């Protein structure tokens, strides 16, 4: 068998592909965080809890209303987005004038409350959620068996990531948003409702987390603590990519997925640490992250 870097080539390709799939997933989550930080200047620690909420909504819809995966893929992010809008309007919007730390503490507390509530009712072991019939099975790629569902995850994540990037970087609405970040007073003077834009942005970004949650439901166990481990990794990705940089979070998400996959092959014990080592190195060399700009 042909070998690359001391391991069989098919195994290496398999690991790279899996890294890419996980990376697409990371990108989807870090994108939402980056948008929230870029536009609202808030470090949203509730992102992991809202991702969990997305997965749980899919499970609740199926269990209590018999609504399947495809409608849930639309409905669940809408519900999570609506919850986000309520959170932003009633609570988070009061903290914009204060130091970053208040937003961080508030969202962190919120995450604990949401997760604690679900643990109380559903326990931590999780609930089973099967992938839709259409996406079961898989393809034999020669070097590995690729489950259809994983292929769908990478396609769906990348489409949504690219769509969001286009929306913010290439449309008129996106330009208003970017302008509102720089000079909210001036944008308001042009007759644009800045607070409304911020509310919708938060709603949209947490809906992305909800969407990721539904995508995750058939792969991982749907459990109240599913967001806890992920959120730390995703934060590291946003920091590496540059806080608030949309392209940065997408590219870094994919890159980190690949590096993590390779670490799992060559030195599996370090696979949960490698991301933070990279983060430390990047912060030493480029304190604003790979794609970040200095913010005053």
């Amino acid at each position: 068998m042909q070998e690359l870097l001391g391991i069989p080539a098919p195994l290496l390709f398999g690991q790279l592909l899996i890294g890419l799939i996980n990376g697409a997933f990371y990108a989807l989550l870090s994108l939402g965080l980056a948008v929230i930080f870029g536009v609202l200047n808030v470090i949203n620690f509730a992102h992991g809890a809202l991702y969990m909420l997305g997965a749980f909504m899919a499970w609740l819809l199926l269990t209590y209303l018999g609504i399947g995966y495809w409608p849930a893929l639309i409905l669940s992010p809408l519900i999570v987005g609506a919850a986000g809008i309520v959170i932003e309007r009633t609570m988070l919007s009061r903290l914009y004038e204060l130091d970053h730390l208040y937003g961080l503490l508030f969202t962190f507390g919120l995450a604990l409350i949401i997760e604690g509530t679900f643990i109380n009712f559903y326990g931590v072991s999780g609930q089973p959620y099967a992938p839709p019939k259409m996406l079961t099975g898989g393809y034999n790629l020669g070097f590995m068996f690729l489950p259809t569902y994983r292929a769908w995850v990478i396609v769906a994540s990348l489409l949504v990531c690219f769509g969001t990037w286009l929306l913010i970087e290439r449309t008129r609405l996106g330009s208003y948003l970017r302008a509102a970040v720089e000079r909210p007073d001036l944008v308001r003077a042009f007759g644009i409702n800045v607070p409304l834009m911020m509310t919708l942005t938060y709603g949209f970004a947490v809906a992305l987390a909800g969407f990721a949650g539904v995508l995750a439901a058939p792969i991982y166990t749907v459990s109240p603590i599913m967001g806890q481990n992920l959120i730390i990794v995703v934060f590291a990705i946003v920091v590496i990519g540059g806080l608030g940089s949309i392209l940065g979070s997408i590219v870094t998400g994919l890159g980190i997925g690949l590096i993590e996959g390779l670490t799992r092959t060559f030195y599996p014990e370090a696979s949960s640490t490698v991301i933070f080592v990279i983060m430390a190195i990047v912060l030493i060399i480029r304190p604003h992250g790979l794609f970040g700009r200095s913010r005053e």
Partner: protein
Amino acid sequence: MRLMKLAMATTAIMVLGTTAQAEISDGVVKIGVLNDRSGLYADLSGEGSVVAARMAVEDFGGDLKVEVLSADHQNKPDVGSSVARQWIDQDGVDVIVDVPTSSVALAVQQVTADTDTAFLNSGAATTALTNAQCAPTFVHWTYDTYALSVGTGKAVVEGGGDTWFFLTADYAFGHQLQADTAAVVEANGGTVVGSVNHPLSTTDFSSFLLQAQASGAKVIGLANAGGDTTNAIKQANSFGIVQSGQQLAALLGFITDVHALGLDVAQGLTLTTGFYWDRDDASREFAERFAEKMNGQKPTMVHAGVYSAVAHYLKAVAEIDDDGGKAAVDQMKTMPINDFFAADGKIRPDGRMVHDMYLVKVKTPDESKGPWDYYDILATIPGDEAFQPLDKSTCPLVTN
């Protein structure tokens, strides 16, 4: 003369002091249930263990005054040992119960041994607790890595699964479970072709599963627990591992894990357990009462073990009217255990509670009559075969 009086008074106080020790300290027996209340092991231990301990106290009746405390050790050894220390030094806790997560249990073991506090472990698995790290204040109640490997390892090799690859949780428990199982596999004529260590609480197992797949081993042994096991099984299913002829052996599976996976995914798994609620009338009766207090959830073997251990401890303490750690455990060792959990169970000098274990197979969705009706009992493994023989123990209490 005054000096003489003073000396006599001091001696009298010291004598009184020592006699006071051979009674129930502070007039109340305090039971501290220390386990994971918020992380991946919270369902298999957690609040359920507290409920089980309270049930044992209520059922005991008697004229002992008993209190039950609980705390979260977050699966961190430093948190576990500092809670234990605070409980013992400041709150007057007399016995610590449950403590899943082997690394935490080993840390707590040092604290309880140093302070003459009884430690009844139900949740942790490592056999180190009754070998090199054993203590006269300690009893290991429910199961251990040796019993798991004897049950599942032997059954799988005998069924034709003679080449193994391990997915191992990278801490004390995982390494011990892998080592014990590998020994059983090799003793029964099988071989181990490789292994990979994964960090505790891994979400995505696909990279590891791919390595297991590439190894060509007939059996993938999961030397992990809780959420790690369920995630690995669920993902192995989607990667077609079972369909392509490899077999999964979950070395430690709890009924809560099966519940989380659903029978569609979990069916056919072979597991070793110390307790199944639907085994006989006594176990069903306990499970019913437990479920009433736990939103319908049936007890895991850890919950049942906590009940059995606390009940036996209270009997021993009432018998000798002393809640000192070594005194209580010594008394426990002289009494046989007969309840819904164990028939003729006995505690050996190394602290191992010996009782029958059960080899079970997870039912198919068609065979199951509803939630929690999950196991067929394939075989009963007699206690003397299930646990490490006493003459193999490296516990100083036995070897000296």
